[in-house]
C-alpha cells in the first residue's frame, strides 16, 4: 500500500468503506448527499495528509491544531443536512475565541461520518490533515479520547447546529460533554464541533497515529479482497476472526447496567456460530458493540473494536440493515496502545459503559 500524502477523490471509496469498520449505529453504508458532497469537495480540492512523524518538523511548537466532529444522531444529519459551511463557521469561531489561526486539523475519529466530516472540513478550510485521531475507533463521548488521556481538553469548543445555532463552550471543569450533549438536543439533533484546540505536536503525541491512512488501507483491502474478507482484515489489523455466525435474534432491552454517562439504548444481537459446535454468540450493543461473548466467555470487549462484516457484501453493516438469518463475520480488532493502560481502560473499557466482569485469564 503506497503511502497516502494527499487524499483525493480517488481515495474516497476506500475512505468511505474503511471508515465504516466497527461502526454499527452511526454507520451510513448507503451513499447519499453527504458522501456525494465530500467526494465533490475532494475533486475540487484534495486534502494534504501529514504523517505524524513529519508533523514534528513541519509544525512549530506554538502552531495550533484542532479536531472536528459531528456530535449527535446520524439519523438527524440525514434529515437536517449540512448547509456546507458549518466547519468553516465553527473553526473560525474557535479561532476568534482563542485569538489564533489553526495550522492543521485532525479527525476526532476516523469512524463513520466523522472521517468524511474531517476530510470535508480540511478541504473546505484548505488546512492540512494530520494522520492521527483521538479515538482510533468510535466512542460516544467527546471526552472519551486519548487526547483527554494525554491531558488535553475538549473545550474551548465551538459548535454549529442545523438551524444555524452556534455555541461556544469554555468549561474549566471539563464538563464540555454534558453541555454539548444538552446543546445538541436543543439545536435539533446534531452539531458540527471544532474541538480540542491544542498545539499540533500535542495532538500528535496524544492521538492515535496513522489511523486515517489505516482506514484508507482497510477500505482498499475491502474493495480488493474477494473472499475471506474477515480473516484478511483481521490479519491486516492484528486482530482475529472470532466467529462466522448466523443472526438469530435482534432485541432491544431495558437498561441493565450501572448508571453511566452513556447515551445508549441497550441492544443485543444473538448469533449462532457456523462451526461444528454451533456456539452461541452474543454481541451487546451500546450504540456500538461493546462486548462479544461466545458461550458466555468474553472474547472481545471495549476498548477493542468489535466489527461485523457481511461476507456477502464484503463490507460492514449498519444496525438497521441487520436481519435475522444473515451470516456475519465477527472480528475483534485490538485497541490502540493508549487504551490498554489502566487509565485508558477506565475511560473506554466496559466499566465506562456500565458493564464489568473480572479480567479473563489469558
Amino acid at each position, binding site marked *: 500500500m503506497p503511502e497516502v500524502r494527499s487524499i483525493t477523490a480517488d481515495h474516497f471509496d476506500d475512505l468511505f468503506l474503511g471508515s465504516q469498520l466497527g461502526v454499527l449505529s452511526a454507520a451510513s453504508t448507503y451513499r447519499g448527499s453527504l458522501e456525494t458532497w465530500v467526494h465533490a469537495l475532494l475533486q475540487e480540492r484534495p486534502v494534504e495528509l501529514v504523517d505524524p512523524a513529519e508533523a514534528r518538523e513541519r509544525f512549530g511548537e506554538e502552531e495550533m491544531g484542532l479536531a472536528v466532529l459531528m456530535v449527535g444522531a446520524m439519523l438527524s444529519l440525514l434529515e437536517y443536512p449540512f448547509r456546507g459551511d458549518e466547519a468553516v463557521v465553527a473553526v473560525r469561531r474557535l479561532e476568534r475565541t482563542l485569538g489564533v489561526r489553526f495550522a492543521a486539523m485532525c479527525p476526532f475519529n476516523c469512524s463513520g461520518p466523522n472521517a468524511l466530516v474531517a476530510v470535508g472540513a480540511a478541504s473546505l478550510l484548505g488546512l492540512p490533515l494530520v494522520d492521527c485521531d483521538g479515538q482510533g475507533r468510535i466512542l460516544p463521548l467527546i471526552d472519551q479520547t486519548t487526547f483527554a488521556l494525554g491531558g488535553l481538553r475538549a473545550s474551548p469548543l465551538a459548535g454549529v447546529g442545523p438551524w444555524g445555532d452556534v455555541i461556544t463552550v469554555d468549561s474549566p471543569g471539563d464538563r464540555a460533554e454534558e453541555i454539548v450533549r444538552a446543546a445538541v438536543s436543543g439545536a435539533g439533533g446534531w452539531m458540527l464541533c471544532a474541538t480540542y484546540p491544542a498545539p499540533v505536536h500535542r495532538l500528535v503525541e496524544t492521538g492515535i497515529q496513522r489511523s486515517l491512512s489505516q482506514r484508507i488501507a482497510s477500505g482498499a483491502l475491502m474493495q480488493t479482497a474477494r473472499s475471506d474478507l474477515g480473516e484478511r482484515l483481521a490479519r491486516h489489523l492484528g486482530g482475529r476472526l472470532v466467529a462466522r455466525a448466523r443472526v438469530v*435474534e435482534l*432485541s432491544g*432491552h*431495558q*437498561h*441493565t*447496567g*450501572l448508571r453511566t454517562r452513556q447515551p445508549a439504548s441497550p441492544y*443485543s444481537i*444473538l448469533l449462532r456460530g457456523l462451526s461444528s459446535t454451533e*456456539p*452461541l454468540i*452474543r454481541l*451487546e450493543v451500546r450504540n456500538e458493540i461493546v*462486548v462479544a*461473548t461466545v*458461550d*458466555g*466467555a*468474553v472474547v472481545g470487549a471495549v476498548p477493542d473494536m468489535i466489527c461485523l462484516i457481511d461476507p456477502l457484501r464484503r463490507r460492514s453493516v449498519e444496525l438497521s440493515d441487520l436481519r435475522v438469518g444473515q451470516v456475519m463475520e465477527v472480528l475483534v480488532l485490538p485497541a490502540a496502545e493508549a487504551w490498554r493502560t489502566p487509565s485508558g481502560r477506565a475511560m473506554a473499557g466496559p466499566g465506562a459503559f456500565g*458493564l*464489568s*466482569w*473480572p479480567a479473563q485469564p489469558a
Partner: protein
Amino acid sequence: MSPDERTPTRASRPEGRPEAVTWGELLRSKPMEQVVVPVRVDLDRDVTKVRLISDLDDMQACRPGTVAVLQPPLASAAWAIEIAVRYAWERSARAVVAQVTGSAAEAVTRLAERLSVSVGFHDGDPTELALDLSALVARPGAVRSGLLARCAVLISEATSVEEVMTVLAQELPRTATSLRGPGDRLLAGCGDELPPDVLRVPLAPLDVEAGRSLTAALSHRSVAWNQTVTRVLQIARAQVVACEASGRVAASVQHEREGFALARVLAAPPDSGPATALGWPLQGPLTGAVVLPLEEAVRAQPAVGLSLRAAWAAEPVGAPPAPYLDGWALWAQLEEPGADPAEDHGRAERALAARAERLVRRAGLGVDLRIGVGLPGSLAATLEQAMIAARAATATGSVRGIERFSTLGSRELVTATDAPHLRRVARETLAALLGVDDRDDLVRTLLAYLDCAGSTSRAAERLAVHRNTVTGRLDRVRRLGVPVDDPDRSLELHLLCHVALSSGLTG
C-alpha cells in the same frame, strides 16, 4: 472438565460433619417454589453455599457447589447472566438464579443447556431468596424434614397405588422407586433392574399378600439420604396397602352384586331390575360362555372371580364375568343379523369364545381355566349349554381349553353330565371287560362296532385293523359276558363305553 472432577467425592467428607443438602433436595424446598428452573443438572450433588452476587467479580470467588443468586442489575441483564453461567461452569458452581423472562431467558437457557449448568429464573426478591436458601443449606435437616412433610401430605392424598408411585417418582429426585412382588416381580413404578444395594421396605406385616416390598434405587448414597428415602417409603407403605384394600373391598362388593343380579335374571326373567341397573345387555338372542376352573377345589373361589373381573376391566365389553354356579358367566348380544342365521350364530359363538379366551389369558392366574360356549338363545338356556360345554372341557381326558356346545359329540355330552355317578355304573357293569389286560383295545373295538351300527368292516376301517381282528376281539368281548348283541341294552352299553374310555377306566 468432566463433572466428576469438579466436586470432591463424598468419600472425602470428614466423618461427623452433617451431610450437605443436595441440589435436588434444595430444588424441592419451599423457597425454590417461586423459581422456574428450566435446566436442572447435578441434582444429587452437594450445595455447599448460597451466594448473593452483585458483581461479576463475586462470581469469580464462587467455590464449587455454590448456588449463585444474582442481584440487579446483573440479574436482569442477559449478557451478564451468560457470563455468570460461564463462570459457574468453569468453577463447578451448582446453579445460577437470575431474573429475566422472555427471549432473554430463552437465550440464557440455551447456553445453560449447552454447558450443563442449572439455571433458574424468578421475579421475587433475590436477597430474600438467597437468605432462605442459605438457611436451608446451613441446616440440611430442615430440608429433609420439609421433604418428609411434603411427601406425607402428597401420599396421603393419593387414592391409588399408581398415584402413590407417581408421588414417589416426583418427590425423590434421581431415585427409581417401585413396588415389587415375590421374586422382585414388578407390580408398579419404575421397571429398572434392581441394583444389589437397593433400599427395601417390606409391606409386611400390614400386607395381606406375602413377599411384597417398596424399593428405591438411589443414584447416590449417604446415610442421611438413605434415612430420608426409607422414611418416605415407610409413609408410602401404609398408603399402598390401604389403597389396595379399599380397591379390593369395592371390587368384591361389586362382584357379589353382579352374582346376585344374574341369579335374579335367571330365576325370574321379567324381574331384571338389578341387572338393568347394572346396564347389562339382556335383549334379543344372547350367546353365553362359562369360565370354569379345571381344579374342582378352586371352583367358585371369589379370588378367581375378582381376578377375572380385573382382567375384564382391560376390555370392558358386555357384562363383566358374574358368578354362575361354580364358574363365571359371560354373554353377548347377537350382532346385526345377516342372511343366514346359522352363520350368525357361528360368528357369535366364535367371537364370544375368542373374547373369553383373551379374558382368561389376561387374568394370568396360573390356574387352569376352561371355557364353554352355549348356543344363541335365552340367557338361561345359553348359560346352561355353556356350563355343559365347560364341564366337557374340564372332563378328564379333554385336551382342549374351550368347548362349544354346538360341536359337542355324544361322548362329550355324556361326560358333561354327572360324571362320577356314571363312572361308578360303568365300572360295575363292565367289570369283566375292564379286568383283562387288553381292555383298552377291547373297549375301543366295541365302541367302534356300536358307533358303526354293527358293521364289522366299517369298524375295522375306523380302527385301521383287519376285519378278522375286529370279529376276533368281539368274540372275546362276548365271551366275557358283555351283551353285545342285545338290542335292549345296546344304548346303555354304548354310553358306558364312552364313559369308560373318557374316564380313563381302560388306562
